[in-house]
């Protein structure tokens, strides 16, 4: 089990109703965690739509999660 700090922005935050949560999971990778949270919050995104930041840097969704990581799932950006 890994305990993580998850932060939600924009459309994802609207599905959770809060910006941050501390979550303990059995999932080993960011990708697996994405599917766990998609089931929980009914996210309207495919796996290929989403990028992940771990400790404030983009990482592969196959990255193994470590205790205390800060995780942010990033839906398609729309800046500029």
């Amino acid at each position: 089990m890994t305990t993580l700090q998850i932060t939600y922005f924009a459309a994802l935050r609207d599905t959770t109703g809060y910006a941050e949560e501390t979550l303990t999971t059995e999932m080993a990778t960011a990708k697996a965690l994405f599917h766990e949270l998609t089931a929980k919050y009914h996210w309207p995104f495919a796996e290929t739509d989403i990028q992940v930041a771990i400790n404030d840097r983009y990482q592969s969704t196959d990255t193994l999660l470590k205790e205390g990581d800060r995780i942010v799932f990033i839906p398609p950006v729309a800046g500029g």
Partner: protein
Amino acid sequence: MLFQLTNQPIETLISSSLHPHTGGIVTFEGRVRAINDDREVSSLEYEAYPELALHEGHTIISEVLEQFDILEARAIHRTGHLAIGDIAVWIMSAAVHRKEAFAATEYIINAIKTSVPIWKKEHYSNGEAIWVRCDRCADEHNHTAKEVFSL
């Protein structure tokens, strides 16, 4: 600062400090449009993931300074609530020769749209608001903004 986020009007942050070899300066201003994809926009909101947005923005500008023959480059992106006509993003490149300044500025705006974690919520005059999904905004001729979901 090479890349900034601000919740204040960008106009107040634009200064022109100039390298003495500067011959050409190309700026790009992205403005809030009154109409987007045939819908009447009343205002919009930009939300950034600041720690990563600043890192990615800084990386873009640093790479441009290495890869293009330019003297300076800067970008500022607005966050928070914006009205029609407000500047959402401001970019400038200064170069000895103009061709490189045009290329660098266009590269920066495309890169920002691709990789800087900033999201846009459009508010429409009929009261609806959506987070805009804009997968191909960097390739704007094929661009279709898709609704994520109404809120």
